[in-house]
């Protein structure tokens, strides 16, 4: 449903060329499209805006979306797809018209990403599967003698999934140093805080004990993220990105309800005002 109170595109004048600009683009488009479509998962999308911006502006080597030697990126926390669409839009891979079709009848841009979209390598949405696929992609690159890398963004609560640890063990055993996992460690999941639902701590020590090269990083610091994603060891790298759920919109930050909740008109207006003031 298109809401009359929302102009078609508040932020179209922005053309991001740096990772901070892309991050703001992702945040603004997330707010705008989430409002237009009247859907949630906003907090999860905002928490990874900086991670995606650094990946898409500074890290991923993707000459063309069908280049076999392109770096692969898997948004294993598929419920934050809107942020990914915004990143693809901000880097010229999705048109404004395509982005505006988010969660409308007949659009391929649903609440979880599908590989039918050019620029999206793998469909996701079922938590705990992306890292296995990424490990396979990394193994394939090694077998083919390619220098391409694989980046997999998982949520912290996704580490509840046992299958994820199967992939963690495999990647470490085979020393898949071309694989980088990123944990969006915002401390929240659908029904509560991760520490209350299923405590993940000590998360870094757990990954370390499984044989990964662990870097803990401020998930909103672009320089630190860029360094964390630049793995140079002989083990798979995991960047545990400490993030703020709902980052950038004050009333969403750290609030569980914004895992699912859509915005009211007043909340939308406040979010726009806050993002414009950043």
């Amino acid at each position, binding site marked *: 449903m298109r809401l009359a109170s929302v102009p078609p595109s508040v932020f179209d004048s922005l053309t991001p060329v740096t990772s901070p600009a892309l991050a703001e683009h992702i945040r603004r488009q997330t707010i705008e499209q989430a409002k237009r479509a009247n859907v949630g998962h906003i907090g999860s999308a905002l928490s990874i805006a900086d991670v995606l911006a650094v990946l898409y502006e500074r890290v991923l080597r993707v000459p063309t979306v069908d280049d076999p030697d392109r770096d692969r990126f898997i948004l294993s926390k598929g419920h934050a797809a809107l942020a990914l669409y915004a990143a693809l839009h901000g880097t010229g891979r999705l048109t404004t018209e395509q982005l505006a079709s988010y969660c409308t009848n007949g659009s391929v841009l649903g609440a979880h990403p599908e590989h039918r979209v050019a620029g999206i390598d793998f469909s996701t949405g079922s938590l705990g*599967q992306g890292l296995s696929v990424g490990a396979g992609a990394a193994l394939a690159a090694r*077998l*083919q003698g390619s220098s391409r890398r694989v980046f997999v963004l998982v949520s912290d609560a996704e580490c509840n999934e046992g299958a994820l640890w199967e*992939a963690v063990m495999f990647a470490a055993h085979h020393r898949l140093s071309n694989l980088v996992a990123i944990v969006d460690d915002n401390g929240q999941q659908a029904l509560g805080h991760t520490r209350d639902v299923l405590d993940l701590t000590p998360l870094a020590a757990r990954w370390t004990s499984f044989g990964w090269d662990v870097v803990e990083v401020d998930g909103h610091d672009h320089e630190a993220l860029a360094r964390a994603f630049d793995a140079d060891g002989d083990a798979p790298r995991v960047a545990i990105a400490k993030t703020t759920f709902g980052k950038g919109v004050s009333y969403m930050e750290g609030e569980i309800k914004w895992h699912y909740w859509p915005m009211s008109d007043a909340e939308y207006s406040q979010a726009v005002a806050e993002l414009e003031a950043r």
Partner: protein
Amino acid sequence: MRSEFVESVVELAERDERVLLLTGDLGYTVLEPFAQRFPDRFFNVGVAEQNMVGLSTGLAEAGFVPFVYSIATFASMRAYEFVRNGPLLHELPVRIVAVGGGLDYGYNGVTHYALEDIALMRAQPGMTVVAPADAAQARTALEETAGLPTPVYFRLGKGETPVAGLEGRFGLGRAHSVTEGDDVAIVALGTMAAPALEAAELLEARGIGATVVVVSSVSPPPLDDLAEVLERVGLVVTVEAHYRNGGLGSLVAELVADRRLSCRLVRKAVEVVPRGLIGSPDYLYETLGLSAPQLAESVVVELEPSKR
């Protein structure tokens, strides 16, 4: 059948460098020929079937043709959602080699009986489902599916005895009649061709002619071949080492309904959860009403004048 199949995979890998073999830590004395010939293309991923299928998805997207090997229960059920969201959703050529289909692991107990894998796999559009009847047919099936760009589920059983009259024939979407008779059609899934043939011999001795049809291509289903036989007989009996719902009997029931065929259908399958039921496959077939004499007796009962 397992060993012959793996030999065929080795032959395939000789001429197709995209072929890889992954195992979930199973296949002792079976997979060595591949592992020794292609050590760099063989991966024991450990006891982790979900990850094995996830890995295969990433490998296949990059151009490989991964064969993943496990016992049918684990290969089908443990990894089911990975199969669905991986090779199926992405239309990738992953080959699931599921050994011990049905009751072949008879002394291992119910956790090792694969009695719903056909139902699960044939529910998925785009999954090719193959249940060879014997080793020669398994070889042909591998050849016939080698070029498919989409996933294949191979349900391998023991199938130690060559099925007379089959001579290794296999075709996607085809079924094969191995005897001719006008009184009844016995339609068998994969390795159940052997007891079906034996039942046909018992029936012949009693003056009843049976057409035994071997179904190995479950998906795509051999609808036309089956319909052609079913239009000629008044009674069709399906037999499978599988639960009653969702397998070959269901497939034939759908065909009978869809094409408004007039034959009667009797589905011989596993009716109960075989808790605490251990024994050789033949012992289990007899206990569960699927042995050749029991099949033959079912046909005789169904053909009694009062039932016609």
